[in-house]
């Protein structure tokens, strides 16, 4: 990621924390090669990080797991930090999350440990211009592609040059983060082998709580609760999508996420909506989640409204509110 001799713009990683990866909205049209989609786990927080900077919807940002990230500005730049609450400082001085933020060359940005939730997003005006794989900057660590891994100390994250801050800093409205503070209820669209599950097991799925287990990563989160009594047997492997809930023989559901495999042979009662995958992904081990049934059209409408808001709203001059065009 270093361009010798070139003028350097962007950030230099001092400490990536436990794990930090570059993510955009993921890869398209490559899953039939066995490649995962990848992409940000929490669509809402990542979109708000970009919206604060008027970025392209697909601009690449850093997805930081549990915080502890430090970086130095190589040039003047404007950044934003969203997602799980953490103490953030610039040169040791506290600054706010969910706002746009100006960094001068040499400034040190430090993101502390995430409280209550798991994922923090760091965006930069214009997006990080790191290497692309298959038309996307999303990093899928488990595929082991050369150079396609988590950030390391001293990595440089290039971005476009930036002159000076224009206008007031943007401050995200409460709707940007309020959803994260709500008890996590995840919309589940019935599908795949829904009809092969026992009615009592389907009822259990939406009436009991599940705890997020320690075995949770970008591929999927294992959930622990009252196990299903009689899940259907394995099936002939079929194409699976991020958000699908698969239930192996032990009856404990696994929620598949952005880096999940492309085909699989466990039965699945349904798929979590794209926005609620983010709400699940934000939960720490031990957190309790519930499911509720929804339907495809409702989920698609919810997602479309979210995307329309991104594309069709503009910031007010004082940077404190958004207005529909």
């Amino acid at each position: 990621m270093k361009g010798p001799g070139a003028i350097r713009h962007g950030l230099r990683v001092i400490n990536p924390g436990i794990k930090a990866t570059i993510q955009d909205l993921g890869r398209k049209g490559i899953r039939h090669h066995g490649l995962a989609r990848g992409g940000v786990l929490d669509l809402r927080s990542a979109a708000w990080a970009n919206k604060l900077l008027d970025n392209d919807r697909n601009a690449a940002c850093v997805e930081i797991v549990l915080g502890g990230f430090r970086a130095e500005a190589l040039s003047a730049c404007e950044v934003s930090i969203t997602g799980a609450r953490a103490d953030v400082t610039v040169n040791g001085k506290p600054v706010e999350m969910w706002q746009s933020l100006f960094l001068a060359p040499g400034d040190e940005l430090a993101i502390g440990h995430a409280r209550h939730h798991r994922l923090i997003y760091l965006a930069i005006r214009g997006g990080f211009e790191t290497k692309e794989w298959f038309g996307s900057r999303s990093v899928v660590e488990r595929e082991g592609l050369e150079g396609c891994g988590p950030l390391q100390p001293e990595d440089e994250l290039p971005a476009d040059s930036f002159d000076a801050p224009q206008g007031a800093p943007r401050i995200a409205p409460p709707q940007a983060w309020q959803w994260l503070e709500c008890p996590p209820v995840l919309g589940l669209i019935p599908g795949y082998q829904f009809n092969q599950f026992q009615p009592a097991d389907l009822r259990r799925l939406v009436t009991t709580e599940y705890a997020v287990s320690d075995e949770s990563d970008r591929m999927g989160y294992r959930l622990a609760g009252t196990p299903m009594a009689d899940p259907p047997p394995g099936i002939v492997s079929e194409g699976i999508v991020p958000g699908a809930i698969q239930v192996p023989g032990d009856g404990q559901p696994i929620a598949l996420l952005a880096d999940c495999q492309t085909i699989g042979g466990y039965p699945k009662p349904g798929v979590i909506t794209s926005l609620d995958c983010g709400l699940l992904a934000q939960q720490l081990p031990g957190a309790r989640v519930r499911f509720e049934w929804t339907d495809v059209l409702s989920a698609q409408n919810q997602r479309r409204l979210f995307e329309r808001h991104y594309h069709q709203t503009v910031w007010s001059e004082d940077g404190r509110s958004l207005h529909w065009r």
Partner: protein
Amino acid sequence: MIEAAGEDALLIRFGDAIDSALPAQIADLCQRIEALELPWLVDLVPSYTTLLVIYDPITINVLDAKARLHPLLSETPSADQTKAEAADSRLIELPVYYSEETGPDLAWIAEQKGLSVQQVIDRHTADTYQVYAIGFAPGFGFMGQVDPTIACPRKDTPRTKVPAGSVGIANQQTAVYPKPSPGGWQLIGRCPTVLFDEENLSLLKAGDRVRFVSISREEYLAQGGQL
């Protein structure tokens, strides 16, 4: 049968059980969908008995996407046509160096099955296999059906590292590991062909047919094989 698989995908089912006639039918539908150049189509993921159609739910909703695909299903070719098409589907030859040093389970399979090592090799190279699906890892093609007389279950404890190019058997399936990875298939040899790279992506596609050809140690090394 078309059903929704979450917010951004439709699953088309062609049958309930593995059937060697299906990969050609599914590949044919893929071609017909691709020919339409649908602006909302994101990806097509074929597997044994299904085709997953991934679309952009911002551009089209589930009802319209279903309605657009539905007429294509009634045009699904008959079994006879499919057989004729299967004959023209791509046939790929994969060279394999079958040996003790590249196939640590070769002798075990021979012993379990009461065969000589050469008989196991002969039976693995005798058939032409269908590629049913790509998955598990980039470029990993699930192929079948392996002669029942050499079919064997996965290892009880998977290996933590299977070398790139390893050719394995799991029940009636066979595959080549494109990259080093953990894996539980019984290993019988190694293939020097590159099955996945970042530029050309997966060499194998669902619907292709594959024949394994036995090569010597010298040929394996000459073709870039690693020991």
